[in-house]
Structure formats: C-alpha cells, structure tokens
C-alpha cells in the first residue's frame, strides 16, 4: 500500500501494476486503469487519451514530493515517508516508527515472526483514533522495544523489520 496525500486529502493506493501498456491499481478501494506510453527504458512518458491521443506526462521527485504535469494540470503530491516503495529513497529500511504520539494497544507480530509488506504489525491509539501500523517491507520481526500499554512519542521506533533479500518488489 502507498499512502498519497494531495491537497490535504489522503488516498490509499494498492496493487500498482503496469502490464501491456496499461497501468492499473486500486485507489481508495476503487479499481482504476489507464493506458500509458513508455519509452525504451520503461519510463512512462505519456498517458490517457484526449480525443484519441496520449497526453505527455512529466514528473520529478524531490524527497517525499513528486511533481507531476499531465493533462493541463500540475500537482505536487506527497508520498508518505517510509510507506512508499518508490524513488528508492526508503531502500530496505525496515524501521517502523510511530506516525504520531500515542498508546500501544496491541502488538500483532512477534519477534522472529515472518511478516509481509502492508501486514498490520501494531495497533496504536492516538487522539481517540485507532491507527494500524503496517510493515513497510517483507521480512522478519527483529527488535521490538515497546510493549502493550506504552505511551510513545511521534517518530519513536516501534519495531525493526529485517528485510528478506529476495522479497524486494522493486526490480
């Protein structure tokens, strides 16, 4: 899952796939697809159709932001740090950190256990909201310095996931 923030709205993106010139995925539970044009390196250079033609698309990534220009629109889109496999900036980092200060309600994975990317690891409560903390990568649970009932600060380390080399989704 990738969490996307645009104009202060959050979106969940799942199952992003590019096959036979069609980009597909699920945005907030809705299945979406789009035809794209790729260059010889597999980079997307145009997408969609207006009046039957592809419209050039351009993008540049600056940290957690990606600027995209497409179809008469330029947007600066935020991809949450540590949750996104894109752009390679998170690499194999398996640190699971608290997104905000709060209380640990439940630990749903044990040290040494195998977990999958996006699997729920921890349930936290913050400002009366329950928040699921998911695994950023496939791997095994290593260090887990917190226990149920602990109060943690924002950005506190909650769990370390040791990556499985063969599990990297990125080519």
């Amino acid at each position, binding site marked *: 899952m*990738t969490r*996307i923030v*645009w*104009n202060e*709205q959050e*979106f969940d*993106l799942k199952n*992003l796939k*590019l096959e036979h010139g069609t*980009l*597909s*995925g699920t*945005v*907030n539970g*809705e299945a*979406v*697809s*789009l035809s*794209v044009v790729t260059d010889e390196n*597999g*980079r*997307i250079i145009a*997408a*969609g159709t207006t009046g039957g033609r592809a*419209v*050039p*698309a*351009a*993008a*540049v*990534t*600056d940290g957690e932001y*990606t*600027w*995209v*220009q*497409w*179809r*008469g*629109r*330029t*947007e600066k*889109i935020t*991809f949450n740090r540590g949750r*996104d*496999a*894109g*752009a390679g900036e998170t690499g194999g980092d398996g640190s699971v950190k608290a997104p905000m200060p709060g209380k640990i309600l439940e630990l749903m994975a044990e040290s040494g256990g195998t977990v999958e990317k996006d699997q729920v690891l921890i349930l936290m409560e913050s400002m009366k909201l329950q928040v699921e903390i998911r695994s950023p990568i496939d791997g095994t649970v290593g260090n887990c310095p917190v226990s149920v009932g602990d109060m943690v600060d924002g950005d506190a380390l909650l769990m370390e996931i040791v990556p499985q080399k063969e599990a990297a989704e*990125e080519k």
Partner: protein
Amino acid sequence: MVTIKRVLIANRGEIARRIATALIEKGIVPVLPLTDKEYKQGVSIFKDCRIVRAPDNIYLDGQALVALAKSENCQAVHPGYGFLAENAKFAESCEQNGLIFIGPPAGSISLMGHKERAREIAKKANVSPVPGFSIDGLNPLEIKEMAEAVGFPVLVKASMGGGGKGMRRVDSPDALADAIRMSKSESAAYFGSEDVFVEKCIVKPRHIEIQIFSFPGGRTVYVGERECTIQRRHQKIIEESPSPVVNEKLRREMGEAAVRIADIVNYIGAGTVEFIVDENLNFYFLEMNTRIQVEHPVTEEVFGVDLVAWQIEEALGTVEAVPQKKIRGAGHAIEFRIYAEDPDQNFMPSPGKILLYREPSGPGIRVESAVATGSEIFADFDPMIAKVVVKGHSRQHALERAMLALENFVILGVTTNREFLMRILSHPAFRAGELDTSFIDRYREELKAADAPIEPEWLLLAAALRKTTGKPAQLPDSGDGAGFYYPPVNARIP
C-alpha cells in the same frame, strides 16, 4: 562605420540571452555581468559569452556598468529592457565615456520618460493623448473642476511611473483627494518624484502598441501593432500581432501617428508607441517606450525582421533603411509570458528551484528563456521564466499551436501561470478576440483552476511516475565560490 568588438549587456535573464545571440551572430563578443548567485546557473546558459562576476546590485548601478564596460574594452552597451534601459543619465554617462549606448539618444529618452512632457509631444504630433491634465500648481478645487470636465471615472497616475505603480482609479470627485495623496507617496517611493496627473479612464480599453524603428537620417518606419490587452496587475502576459480589431486603415493611422511622434524627438532605433483604444476604435496616445520591448518577438515573427539585429547594426552604422512599403506582415503571432507566480494567490511570485524544465519545440514555436533544469527563480528579480511565441498562418492556427506549446512546456518545482494561460487560451471571449484590459478581472471565476477533486487516474499515474523518475538534477558545482567583483572567470577571449 565604427568598430565594435565587444558589447556589455547591462541586463540579465532571457533578454540578455536574446541580445547575446544577436551579437554573436555578428561576430561581436557579448560581455555579461553575472551576480554571484546567478553565476552557477548562468555559466552554462551564457557559456558563449565573456562572463564577469558582479555584485548583486549591478544591473541598477550605472557607474559600475560603465566602469565594467571600460575595463572590459567594450565599445558599446546594450541595456535590454527594464533596469537602466530608459534611464537618460545612464545613456548620457555611456556617451560621455565614449561608449555607444544601443538605444535612442539620451535626449529622446528623457523627453519621453516624463509622461506629461510626452503627452505634449504627442499633441504637437497631432496625436491625441487620453484627455487629462497635470495637477502641478493647481489647488484642490481646480483639480476637482478639471477632473469633472474630463469626466469620471478618472485615473490618477505618476508622471514618472510605469507598470501600474502609483496609479489609482477614481470613480467620484469625493475620492479624488485621497487618491492623489496615495499616488504621490507611491510615486515618490518608486520613482523619486511626486509629480502626478489625472486622466480620463477609458472604459473597456484595449492596449495596442506600434513598433517603430528609426533608421539614421530620420527615416522612421512602423512595424505593425501588438495587442497587449491581456494584463494582470497592469502588466502584460499575452501579446499578439496583428490585433484582432485593427484593420489596414487603422494600422496606417496609428502607425503614422507613432512615426510622427518619433520624428519630433529625433528618435533613433527601436521604440514602441503605446495607445489606448476604446470600444469605438478611437486611439489615444499613452506613452512611448524608448527601448526594445519584452514582446518584440511577436513583431519579428509576423514581419520577418530582427529588431535586435537592427539595433546592433544601427550602432555599427551598417543598418540599411527599409522603406515603409517593404514592411509587410504575414500570419499571426502570440506571445505568452510564463511566470513563477500563483494565479490563485493574486499572481504572487512563487520563486524557487526548477526541478524539471523542458521547452516545447516544433513548427511555429519559439521560446525565449535563460533557465534550465536546476535553475532558481530568484525572489529579487522579475519572476518571468520564459516567453513562448507561437506563429500560425491565422489567429486560429496560432491559437492551436499555442495550446500544444503550452501543454508540452514542462516546468516542475515552482508554481507557474502556465495552466492559467491555457485557461485564458480556451476562454470563448479570448478565442473570439473580445478583449479589454479588465479581461482577467472580469472572468476571474471562469479562469480559476477547476475546484474538481483529483481523478484517481491522476494519482495512479503519479505513483507510477514516482517509481520511474529520479531525483531532481543537480547543477554541476562551478567550484568557484569566490565573491570578488569582476575577476575574470572564464577563459579570456582575445
């Protein structure tokens, strides 16, 4: 004929690039001051120029520019537009120091620089300025009476002003005194002069200007008109030639009026006479710009001339006068000024670093700029990024090409007015050529970015692009951070 081997460009950005190219074409070495912070990005853009490091305020420091031109063995100075381009003292100082000022004589600049005097010159040339009067020496009652005679609404304007600074619209006599007071203080702050005047406010005005060129021996020609009616904050953002409303007869009338004005001040070189045109196509003299204009490429595209080359040839003494009957236009050209600014925030400048920059190209597309991926748009200079000039065989054709050119212009990392320009381009009133200077205000709501939510397809594409595009390109480090004034940095050109 004089020998010119090196010319100082007393300017920066796209116009410096435009002038540099024209000089190089003639085998002249452009000498260009670059401030410390501009050097890093400028060095690759101006690599074919002799670059000199300069302090931050160089473009407004006439003395330093003259000294630089002398020490760099320049024979002439090209001022471009803005900065000191219409500063008679600078032109004079160049002349006194044996440097050719590539522009009109200091005398013409100073005559036309004072708006009230310029109006008198227009009257002498039998061209009617917008009805109005100088408030100099009048008491408040007299001002009120004269304003009523002109007819409300009126505009209070700074005599030395420009760009809408020090300008106020007044709809009733009661508001006049306040407007004059504010205009005076703004004028003093911006232009160092409290002189203001009152003029009739033309309702639904169009801003149409005539390009002129005065060849030696007093042979002045007009090179068509430019419609510059689409403005925001009293600054032009779209200019086109020909104007959708100017016919052959009006063109000749306006052109001949402009030539008469230029001849009275013994003009030399490129200049522009600006007119306000009302709904009934009456035209009134507004002002004369004694320099090359930002929007000059529009005229060049339609008339197949090179105005900057003419300026240089005029300085060299090699320019060949073109008779009026040989000045013939064909087709239609439109210029769009791309700014780092936010149309949703009242066009506030949005300086910053351009993370990705790709200019459009193709038949009929000309881009004037001096930026690249990694360039910064600085807060302390005009935030214009580039000018896109499109040429088509008709207005309709030019509009089609413009849409494609703007769509294919990639500028990421700073907020720009690119999409705002695309929305103007799609607006039915613009397409129909129904323009007046309040166009952007009037259609403010329609020209706003659609408040539509983002389509899921958009986010899907964004995520996919994020996976396949890299980090922003970094400018190569120049390795030269020394903040000296004028040390030679690139190889000396013999």
